[in-house]
């Protein structure tokens, strides 16, 4: 049972992830626009954090720490950061050279590109890379963005600009769409100017998805898109 305008009674179970799918959607949708319920949820999330302490104490293998260090070293600079960073660093998997060419190309053609965005949906870049221009929506009329996909579809980058910075309880979520299925691939925030660039870590080749969407969701993301859509675009080849 829920309050007429709030979902307070569902929040304890939501914090435990023990609601069924329909109720989870209901709560997630409500949270995107309700500060009161987000505040209440945080209190219950702290309870779930404390509950961890009743787990029987156990020790991992001593070498796990070394494995972590090795893993971090292997990841190198592909890690994502909250702050703006050069695009070629986030695009490392397709090679520094390609990334460098990409950033140079983007910088050099920046003005031209943004002039053309209103007219073209897909731009073909160097080495067969595609830049898919994302359309904004009524809820974010100033926002712009594009997705760059490598020629083999294995790597991609999302760049957004002038997306409104969100309050502390909400984040943007990037979805890849295939049929009626939405796959979450990133939850992110933007800097003061609404900018963010990030690598798209898709479970499968980007060429297998039909579209990309960016929505506003509760912090940490939602299992399915619930909030307002702010950007979207088709990934199909023209």
């Amino acid at each position, binding site marked *: 049972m829920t309050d007429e305008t709030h979902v307070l009674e569902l929040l304890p179970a939501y914090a435990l992830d023990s609601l069924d799918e329909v109720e989870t959607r209901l709560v997630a949708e409500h949270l995107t626009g309700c500060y009161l319920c987000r505040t209440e949820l945080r209190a219950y999330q702290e309870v779930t954090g404390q509950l961890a302490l009743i787990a029987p104490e156990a020790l*991992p293998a001593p070498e796990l720490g070394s494995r972590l260090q090795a893993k971090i070293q292997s990841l190198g600079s592909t890690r994502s950061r909250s702050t703006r960073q050069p695009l070629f660093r986030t695009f490392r998997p397709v090679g520094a050279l390609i990334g460098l060419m990409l950033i140079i190309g983007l910088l050099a053609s920046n003005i031209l590109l943004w002039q053309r965005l209103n007219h073209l949906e897909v731009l073909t870049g160097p080495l067969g890379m595609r830049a898919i221009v994302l359309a904004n929506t009524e809820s974010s009329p100033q926002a712009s963005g594009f997705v760059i996909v490598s020629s083999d579809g294995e790597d991609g980058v999302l760049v957004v600009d002038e997306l409104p910075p969100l309050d502390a309880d909400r984040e943007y979520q990037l979805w890849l769409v295939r049929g009626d299925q939405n796959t979450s691939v990133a939850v992110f925030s933007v800097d003061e100017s609404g900018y963010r660039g990030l690598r798209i870590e898709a479970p499968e080749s980007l060429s297998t998805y039909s579209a990309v969407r960016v929505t506003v969701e509760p912090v940490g993301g939602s299992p399915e898109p619930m909030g307002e859509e702010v950007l979207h675009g088709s990934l199909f080849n023209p």
Partner: protein
Amino acid sequence: MKELKPDDASLIARIAQAQAEALNRLYDRYNRLVYSVALAIVGDRAVAEEVTLDVFVQVWQRAGTYRPEQAQVRTWLIAITRHHAIDILRMQKSRPEANAVIWNEDSVPDGQSAHGLEEGVQLSIQRERVRQMVAELPAEQREALVLAYFRGYTQSQIAEVLKQPLGTIKTRIRLAMQKLRKLLEED
């Protein structure tokens, strides 16, 4: 001169700046807790270690998204751990014995030195407090809570496992969480 211990949020901020040493410190501080929760959920040591590894790799990759005003670092870490471990359970479509009694298992707080004596003692005190709070719950509320928390069951699944009406389970979980919240806020 004794080095001041950085708080958790400072460590996360340094991890966001790609300081691997900060990640090592966070790992030293929380690896046992993360592993313990993962093991309680997945019931397999090797899988729990993989979960633990993945959690700290995610921290390395996502430290920049952490917001101190949202949750304590420990809460954030545990949320990542639970989600990941429960996802694995659901993917495997098998779970540890549904009625495995997590609550009554006695843990052995050995090896405190791995944390540092002070942190180990602090964590032990916190653990004891939380266990006392959970002990204050009626047994049926505790049972439903443990199945939700450590088995990742939805309320409907708990109702099925315990052969109780769904409404009863919803009430038990809601009351349990409300009581714990109150006790923690009073603490």
